[in-house]
């Protein structure tokens, strides 16, 4: 039986790893290569590494660092940040990265996903949507934002997710900005709506503070990707940096609840 994936999400900033809250207050948590080594030992399901500087600064991905990460990584790796054309995606996949994530560039130009899928296969193409509650006193509903939540996209988030799927994405990652770093649980209702609307695998990020939060997501949605940042890099209420990950038996227990719901 296929089981849910429990995915540490690491953010790259100025060459180091950081963790944010609501996309702000980046706190340094360590060296990326060292973190990959620790997650290797813990046999993590998959790793997601997002460079949060590249798109904002308009620079291309740090290929040297990606090559080092890929060589060290003994689990599937998804890289995102600064990818703006299919050639870059092909270069990253050739380095041994399983999946390449794009956000702003694909939202502005969904054909990018089609071109990436043609170059590396759609199973290696991931679209990331940063979703938050609309700001403003009278606003209702949610919106997608880009460039570390500094720009807003007009389209409805679920409609947009579906169009990115149709354009060539083989996986959609939904990142709930308002829950980022809050460790209070995933946004389950809205996550369920995304899952039902899409036919590719969906991964949720933002809000997990305990393994119970992951269990809640899996119980509610079935086989799903459950990604988290803070949960796997902080310990205790003072947010001391300590990389951690559930052991294999704990991981199976967390996912067992969902077995049989689909797949």
């Amino acid at each position, binding site marked *: 039986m296929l089981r849910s994936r429990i995915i540490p999400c690491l953010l790259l900033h100025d060459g180091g790893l950081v963790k944010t809250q609501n996309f702000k207050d980046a706190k340094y948590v360590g060296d990326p290569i060292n973190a990959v080594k620790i997650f290797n030992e813990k046999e993590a399901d998959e790793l997601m590494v997002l460079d949060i500087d590249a798109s904002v600064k308009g620079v291309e991905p740090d290929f040297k660092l990606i090559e080092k990460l890929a*060589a060290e990584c003994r689990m599937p790796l998804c890289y995102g940040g600064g990818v703006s054309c299919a050639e870059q995606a092909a270069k990253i996949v050739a380095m*041994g990265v399983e999946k390449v994530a794009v956000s702003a560039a694909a939202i502005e130009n969904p054909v990018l996903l089609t071109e990436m899928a043609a170059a*590396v*296969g759609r199973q290696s193409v991931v679209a990331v949507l940063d979703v938050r509650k609309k700001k403003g006193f009278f606003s209702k509903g949610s919106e997608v934002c880009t460039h570390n939540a500094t720009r807003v996209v007009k389209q409805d988030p679920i409609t947009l997710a579906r169009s990115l799927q149709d354009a060539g994405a083989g996986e959609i990652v939904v990142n709930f900005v308002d829950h980022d770093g809050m460790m209070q649980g995933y946004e389950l209702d809205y996550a369920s709506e995304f899952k039902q609307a899409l036919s590719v695998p969906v991964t949720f990020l933002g809000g997990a503070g305990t393994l119970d939060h992951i269990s809640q997501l899996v119980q509610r949605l079935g086989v799903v990707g459950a990604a988290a940042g803070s949960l796997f890099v902080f310990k205790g209420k003072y947010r001391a940096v300590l990389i951690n990950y559930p052991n294999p038996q704990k991981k199976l227990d967390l996912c067992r609840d969902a077995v049989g719901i*689909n797949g």
Partner: protein
Amino acid sequence: MIRIIDYGVGNIQAFLTLFKRSGISAAKASAADDLQDATRLVLPGVGHFDHAMQRLNDSGMKPELERLVLQESVPVIGICVGMQMLADSSDEGTLPGLGWVPGRVKSFASDPVTAGLPMPHMGWNTLNIKPSSSLFQSGFDDEPQFYFLHSYYFDAKDKSDVAASAHYGADFDVVVSRGHIHGVQCHPEKSHHWGVQLLKNFAEFG
């Protein structure tokens, strides 16, 4: 030494790193001359079937590979699309496969039982193994979990070639072994200790 076939498709570095860490001598082969010292062969592959077949056809290595595998009986393992290339043909493309293991590559989407499931089949799944298979001869006492990322699967014509299967909506063939010719749909190079063990077994018993 183990030669990993480098024809511009697939994750060569991950295999080199894994074999090196396991103390097994391995290097890539980018031309027919590089294949002369091969005692075992790894055929990786990702992406589209026809693209991978075309690249292999263009690499100049295919005639020598066929000679080594079919006449010299050098053990070979195809991984992911590399496994699918062992088949006669694929629903994903029009080019013929290598035809080393009888079978056809089919799409989950074309089977009504699996058509409604999320595609690609992505993540960790449990393998039901045939313990007598050389690839599982040693170190597979626990329930093996492997990483998958694919939408097409190998459907072996002769089911006695099947060394492991998994379930995604329906059972499908994951590992085939026909004598010294092996194929693995999942990614042993990204499947932690289970994958390392499978590749060690290939290096020793394959």
